[in-house]
């Protein structure tokens, strides 16, 4: 079966920075794939290679089986990219923007389809407005519409939630999920762990240009060996004090190496006659996965690193 997206040993260096280091993975048609990583991990560089905006020093990339370097006309026809930055042509109205975009893909009379896309993105009433007059959120929707105007089977969204209010974010999530259900392959980059956890089937974690982890979301989450248990009690058994990661009054966050250690914890509590007021197993999240895979924190609040983006 042809992969929707395939990277084969892709490397790229910018000066002293090894932006991408031997990246290889495949995305099957119909997948909802998340590319996760802190700012500067190489996410934008990697997806820019798909659209031909960045060229790798070595390695190859394919969209629907078409090499992005040697068969770029076909690879680009199969690819829709929603860029991270809100950009637009100030000379054009919304409808013109979409007509031109369709035209750049050789589509002659795409007006019916444009009307539909506008409708789906709640832009119908803005169709004849100049791009300059639109709000930031509206402009971002137009970017999504532009990426869809040639009906690409593979859609890449670069940080769709960056700088977007909660309402639009959820509307976009619903919309993207919809596209995925209807057969589009989605590749989404994000540094919001919540976004990847909510939407994606499979997730690749990038760290300093390398794939630190790649698996189904559930497997990644269950791969976190250390389990966190939140115990509410008067005190913690002496033998377990070293395992306490956080203390908030009578609430202790305790780390178990393996789940079987739970019995030992209970036995220790019983032996010391400590009454359990509450005991909860904390759900592991992608932050923990990332921590375990890379040994470093995810730093979700880091400033936008813009250097890596392709202009």
């Amino acid at each position, binding site marked *: 079966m042809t992969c929707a997206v395939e990277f084969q040993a892709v490397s790229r260096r910018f000066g002293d920075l090894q932006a991408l280091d031997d990246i290889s993975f495949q995305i099957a048609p119909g997948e909802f794939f998340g590319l996760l990583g802190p700012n500067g991990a190489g996410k934008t560089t990697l997806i820019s290679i798909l659209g031909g905006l960045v060229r790798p020093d070595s390695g190859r990339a394919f969209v629907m089986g078409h090499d992005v370097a040697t068969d770029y006309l076909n690879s680009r026809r199969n690819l829709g990219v929603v860029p991270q930055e809100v950009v637009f042509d100030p000379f054009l109205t919304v409808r013109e923007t979409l007509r031109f975009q369709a035209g750049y893909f050789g*589509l002659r009379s795409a007006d019916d389809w444009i009307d539909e896309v506008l409708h789906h993105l709640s832009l119908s009433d803005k169709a004849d407005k100049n791009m300059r007059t639109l709000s930031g959120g509206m402009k971002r929707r137009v970017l999504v519409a532009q990426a869809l105007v040639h009906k*690409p089977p593979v859609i890449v969204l670069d940080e769709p939630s960056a700088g977007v209010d909660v309402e639009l974010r959820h509307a976009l999530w619903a919309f993207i999920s919809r596209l995925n259900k209807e057969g589009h392959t989605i590749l989404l980059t994000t540094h919001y762990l919540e976004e990847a956890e909510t939407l994606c089937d499979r997730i690749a974690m990038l760290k300093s240009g390398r794939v630190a982890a790649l698996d189904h979301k559930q497997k990644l989450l269950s791969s976190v060996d250390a389990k966190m248990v939140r115990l509410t009690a008067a005190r913690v058994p002496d033998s377990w004090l070293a395992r306490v990661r956080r203390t908030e009054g009578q609430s202790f966050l305790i780390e178990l190496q393996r789940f079987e250690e739970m019995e030992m914890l209970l036995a220790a509590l019983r032996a010391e006659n400590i009454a359990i007021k509450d005991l909860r197993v904390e759900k592991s999240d992608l932050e923990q996965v990332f921590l375990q895979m890379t040994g470093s924190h995810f730093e979700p609040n880091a400033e936008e690193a813009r250097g890596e983006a392709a202009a």
Partner: protein
Amino acid sequence: MNNVVSDSMNTGTASNQADTKFPFPAPSGYPLPQAGEGKEGADLNQKRPSRHDAAGSLYKKPWHMLFYKEVLRFRRVSFQTVAAPVMMALLYLLIFSHVLESRVSVFGGRVSYTAFLVPGLIMMSVLQNAFANTSSSLIQSKMAGNMIFFLLAPITPWGFFLAYVLAGVLRGVLVGIGVWLAALFFAPQLWHPVAPGWIIAFGFLGGAVLAMLGMIAGLWSEKFDQLATFQNFIIMPMTFLSGVFYSVHSLPDFWFKVSHLNPFFYMIDGFRYGFFGESDVSPWLNLALVGTACALLTWGTWALLARGWKLRI
């Protein structure tokens, strides 16, 4: 793993979706491009005749649309991009012809100074506007970041080249025609040029050369400032000092020779030959030099575009 192959989009997945807001597969069940499909100009909804406004049936290939956008860009602000340069050329014509008509003799007095001046002004307008169009369009797209829209599209380097250069030539020629028509009030004999073929050839080739130089300058510049430097310190002096306002034979020997190093001199001289059948050097030499420059620049510009110079990193 969700292994929905893209074909499933054609088979009515919309039917069980009650939400009317996102019936995403078009009701007709639009065909997704499949791997291996590479047709250009696929028509999404053939039943509807194409509209006649903004994006009509004008184009078939992706670059046609890029060309059309380039034309629309200067048409939308045509007062600034076409009318203003015509006005400028007419001011030069008014002032110079008034001041110098009785003092300067060209081609041994067979041609009045005013008539001599007009073809030079026309050509200067063609050259400057062809350059301005490609260079300013590229730098604007670069600054606004919207170049990404056609960089992501299946447009070949030749497509980029043709779209930009032809639009630049078109603007140059439109301004040139404007100057010519307005100048007929001052020199009606120019209505009947001696050899129109030369006019067309040099107008097109000269416009193309400058449109290509504009492309290179626009690609090279990182900001408006750099482009303005290129325009004000290279293009403007070279067009002004290329024999627009005088016959180079009236210059001292040193400057006469320097003028022959200016490539724009040959464009204007050849262009002028088309009007009067007289020129400072042979029109064939002019044509050979301008044609060679055009060919070399075509190759050079294409090579830069094919490499993705300053466009793809």
